[in-house]
């Protein structure tokens, strides 16, 4: 335990982390963005409640607060998918364009610590946004229908998604020289994850209906849906008992029906989601470390060989 605490303290003493957080958090734009986001989420929550209770808060039923929770959580997922690439897609290419990367690489900071710091600072702003909305979610607790563990489960899923999007964006930022291209590729990857997989799943479902290999196409469709954060969040909310679609919209109903048809709440679906998102993120970040200084692994290999021969 003491060793972990020491390592954590040492890591927190990382000068790049302190510099990045200081630079990000002390600008006026950050305060403005935080305030604006809270205002929008607050306004949405207020309008949602007002429409449902017509000004009489006693009329608010637990089922309705579950709807509000579902709505807010999807709004937050949309925010994550839009804002994360914007923040993370320039972390390395921006350093390269500002011509500060060369100097940074000649300091004793390792490429791994640079990439990991960039990852943490990229997601820290979004994490702050998520944490800031917790008081708004407490409105949901006030009227019942949702318990804290359910909220935490949805937040957990969103944090994994956030980490994956940040990793993808940092990957493009490290491998492409220009921030412009990195941003385009990051958003394209997010679009492929959120929309592309949904379209592919829908396509495979339709093929399955007219094919003799229904099981195979159905399985492929299920994989596509199980890798899509929108459907996995729906599966989480469905498994928590939120079967009432928000505003009874047909598109939301279709998402929940896909969850039931393909049994996305199953362990297998969650395993494939977590394996891809966590494992994929780790692989992408490792490739970024290699790209940042190609000699890193050669040195590590030599050290390992020397250690083994000893």
């Amino acid at each position: 335990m003491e060793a972990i605490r020491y390592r954590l303290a040492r890591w927190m003493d990382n000068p790049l982390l302190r510099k990045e957080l200081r630079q990000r958090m002390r600008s006026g734009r950050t305060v403005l963005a935080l305030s604006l986001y809270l205002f929008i989420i607050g306004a949405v929550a207020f309008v949602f409640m007002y429409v449902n209770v017509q000004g009489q808060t006693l009329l608010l039923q637990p089922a309705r607060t579950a709807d509000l929770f579902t709505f807010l959580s999807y709004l937050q997922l949309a925010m994550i998918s839009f804002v994360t690439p914007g923040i993370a897609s320039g972390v390395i290419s921006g350093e390269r364009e500002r011509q500060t990367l060369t100097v940074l690489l000649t300091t004793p900071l390792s490429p791994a610590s640079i990439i990991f710091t960039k990852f943490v600072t990229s997601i820290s702003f979004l994490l702050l946004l998520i944490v800031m909305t917790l008081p708004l979610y407490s409105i949901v607790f006030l009227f019942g229908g949702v318990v804290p563990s359910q909220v935490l489960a949805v937040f957990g899923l969103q944090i994994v998604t956030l980490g994956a999007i940040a990793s993808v964006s940092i990957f493009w930022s490290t491998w492409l020289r220009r921030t412009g291209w990195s941003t385009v590729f990051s958003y394209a990857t997010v679009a492929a994850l959120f929309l592309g997989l949904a379209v592919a799943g829908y396509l495979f479902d339709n093929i399955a209906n007219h094919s003799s290999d229904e099981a195979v196409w159905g399985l492929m469709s299920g994989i596509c849906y199980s890798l899509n954060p929108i459907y996995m969040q729906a599966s989480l909310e469905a498994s928590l008992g939120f079967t009432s679609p928000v505003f009874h919209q047909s598109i939301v109903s279709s998402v929940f029906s896909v969850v039931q048809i393909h049994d996305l709440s199953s362990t297998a679906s969650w395993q494939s989601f977590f394996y891809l998102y966590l494992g994929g993120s780790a692989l992408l970040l490792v490739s970024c470390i290699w790209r940042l200084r190609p000699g890193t692994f050669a040195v590590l290999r030599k050290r390992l060989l020397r250690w083994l021969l000893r």
Partner: protein
Amino acid sequence: MITTENLCKRYGKTDAVRDLNLDVRAGTVFGFVGENGAGKTTTLSILATLMLPTSGRAFVGSAEVTTEPAAVRRMIGYMPDVFGVYDDLSVREYLAFYGTAYGVGAAQIEERTKELLNMVNLEDKADGYVNALSRGMQQRLGLARCLMHDPPVLILDEPASGLDPRSRIEMREIIKGLRQRDKTVLISSHILPELADMCDEIGIIKRGALVACASVEVVTARVNGHRQICVEVLAGGLAMADALARHPYVSEVLTCEETRVDLLFAGTERDQVELILDLTAAGYQVKTFREVGGSLEDLFLHLTSDAHAAEQSASALEGSAAGQMA
């Protein structure tokens, strides 16, 4: 302090650096000269652990750059030819960031920031933002940044490039001041006369290969041994050319016209004064008597103009350097 052994770097079919053998002694200021694309920046990048060589080895102190890059990084302060600064950081925070990155303690950072800002004449800008500084100030700050962890070796890639004359002189004076700090400095530049003023030794690189390497005295002596002089007279230039051709210190009359003679002079400055007096005494009405070129730049152009000539000059220079060292 800095050594390379048959260092090579190849990009596809292009050899950026070919069998480069450098030996920069501790405490010296070594000037690395070459045309654009000659391989200077590639060599410095390899030494700064930013790039892996295709073959050969490079050492800073006793640490090899490919196998012990972390040790090399702690020993060097590297300033690239073009570098940016972070927005929203004050000069003090900028230096503190790099100091902390090298593991310098908080008390030492405070002390060194004060000392280095004083050295680079930026003490009044300590609380200003780095992106608000002029180019010259940013270059000086970059040099201060290199010194934050007090490294024994400094690798400076064209530190005066893009600076106005005043900033260039300021930068030159600061680099000259590094001698007192007992630093080994490897500096690349195109501005050869400035290098002669700052450096103890000079290496000339052409197409990735070192074509000449000697002390500044040896190089300067060689340049001075073959100074090109232009003599302009009101009349009688052709007759004067005959007389000059017989002069013991005139190695060659290059061109002669009625009013102008160009020659190669091998004597000292005192011999030069005597030649002027002799010409005047012989009745030639000397209008101007001036050196044409005759600088390190000429030697550089000469060495880098033709491969054969370069090799000859290199062997001659290396021979003189070896003789001087012996």
